[in-house]
């Protein structure tokens, strides 16, 4: 492979769909034009190409920078992406003993996500020594010990940050979590059923056993701190859409630890800015399922389309294996000859660089 091709591949790695195609065309134009300039100055083709590449700097800085822009959705922080999904679904949970009731909702035109009872959240934060105040859609948070107090939660003034159900107001979990992180709090999710959000000595316990809420909560740790897997594609927790099945692994799984299975599915998608203009699109949606392991065993819900899969031992290998399938002009399927690249990650629950570790394919076996 030519040095230029290698550069372009590395510089566009991790990007999807139109974003990838456009950057590739743009960089190719830059390279060709610069090479032509050096050629006019009397350099040989090889020398012109070498000088151009040296001038450009490392390709990883390009891909890293572009990913940084693409993965912050136009509407604000993670979770506020204007996904082209329809249908509203609200699921109430049975009352329990924990402090803050969580529900799973899907406001118009927004991807489904979990929500927390705002009034109960205010009480729980007060008991933890902090403060949540103001109207739910423009609230501010103060976390004990965090460097920034009265931090605004919904800076993007996004309408989907809150929803009403049965006379109560609910705040989107991702909006709340991002606010906690923006205040500078060191944050961790612990537990599975009725999990807690912990910051220093403060703890807020959420009342939920709904796997979708639990998935959403742990997925936040990956969306904020994890590998740049989404890269312009929509990263969904797995919906029970009728095309799901179970998959179990045995191996070195620790009882009570949390794991996630990341799987690519083919589906055309687009995201839009607040005025409705499509700003990005692609053909792969990464879905995930998070679950708690028993000793030596874990079970996941999977999308049936990825029955043929291959586990990868590192994120880069996983991304590279997906590259050939991002061509939106062709129809792709996962089958025995084209197994879906997948990742099995152990999650620490911490929002930070240690949010995940890749589980070695050699240490586990699919049942």
């Amino acid at each position: 492979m030519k040095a230029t091709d290698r550069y372009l591949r590395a510089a566009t790695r991790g990007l999807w769909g139109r974003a990838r195609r456009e950057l590739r065309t743009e960089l190719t134009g830059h390279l060709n034009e610069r090479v032509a300039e050096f050629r006019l100055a009397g350099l040989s083709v090889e020398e012109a190409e070498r000088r151009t590449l040296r001038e450009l700097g490392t390709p990883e800085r390009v891909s890293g920078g572009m990913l940084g822009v693409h993965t912050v959705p136009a509407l604000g922080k993670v979770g506020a992406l204007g996904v082209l999904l329809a249908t509203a679904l609200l699921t109430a949970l049975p009352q329990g003993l924990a402090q803050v009731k969580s529900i799973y909702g899907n406001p118009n035109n927004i991807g489904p996500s979990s929500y927390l009872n705002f009034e109960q959240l205010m009480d729980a934060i007060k008991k933890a020594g902090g403060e949540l105040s103001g109207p739910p859609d423009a609230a501010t948070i103060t976390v004990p010990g965090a460097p920034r107090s009265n931090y605004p939660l919904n800076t993007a003034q996004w309408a989907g940050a809150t929803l009403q159900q049965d006379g109560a107001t609910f705040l989107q979990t991702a909006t709340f979590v991002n606010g906690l992180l923006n205040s500078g709090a060191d944050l961790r999710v612990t537990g599975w059923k009725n999990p807690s959000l912990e910051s220093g000595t403060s703890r807020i316990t959420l009342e939920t056993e709904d796997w979708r809420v639990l998935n959403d909560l742990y997925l936040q740790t990956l969306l904020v701190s994890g590998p740049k897997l989404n890269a312009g594609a929509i990263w969904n927790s797995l919906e029970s859409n009728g095309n799901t099945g179970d998959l179990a692994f045995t191996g070195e799984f620790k009882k009570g630890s949390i794991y996630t299975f990341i799987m690519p599915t083919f589906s055309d998608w687009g995201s839009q800015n607040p005025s409705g203009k499509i700003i990005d699109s692609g053909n792969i949606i990464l879905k995930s399922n998070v679950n708690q392991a028993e000793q030596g065993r874990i079970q996941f819900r999977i999308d049936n389309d990825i029955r043929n899969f291959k586990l990868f031992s590192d994120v880069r290998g996983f991304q590279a294996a997906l590259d050939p399938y991002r061509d939106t002009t062709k129809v792709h399927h996962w089958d025995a000859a084209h197994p879906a690249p997948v990742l099995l990650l152990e999650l620490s629950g911490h929002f930070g660089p240690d949010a995940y570790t890749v589980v070695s394919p050699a240490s586990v076996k699919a049942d």
Partner: protein
Amino acid sequence: MPSPAPDSPDANLLRGHLDLILLSIIQGQPKYGLEISKQAQERTSGYFDLKVGSLYPALLRLEKAGFVRGGFQSAPRSGSPVKVYALTESGGKELEARRREFETFTRQLGKLWQLGGAS
């Protein structure tokens, strides 16, 4: 003895003002990436050296924010498609606002130097 003036800006200083630098170069005639990085160098005698790794992500960010509009055209020498960026109306306003902000900032900072300064 004071250090001599550096021949390139501090990385944080450059990063903090990258949008202002790019909007300043793009205003007037629309330009593509290579032209923008060359103009940055030529017009400042090499002080601003914008690497591709910071240039294109910043252009994408400005485009997403609606401050510049990009469209593909053929480049003059190679004929390859290059993305040409033009300032939008809101980009023009943004440039003006940022320029005023920067001028006010340096003017106020200058007062501190005068007061504490070379007496």
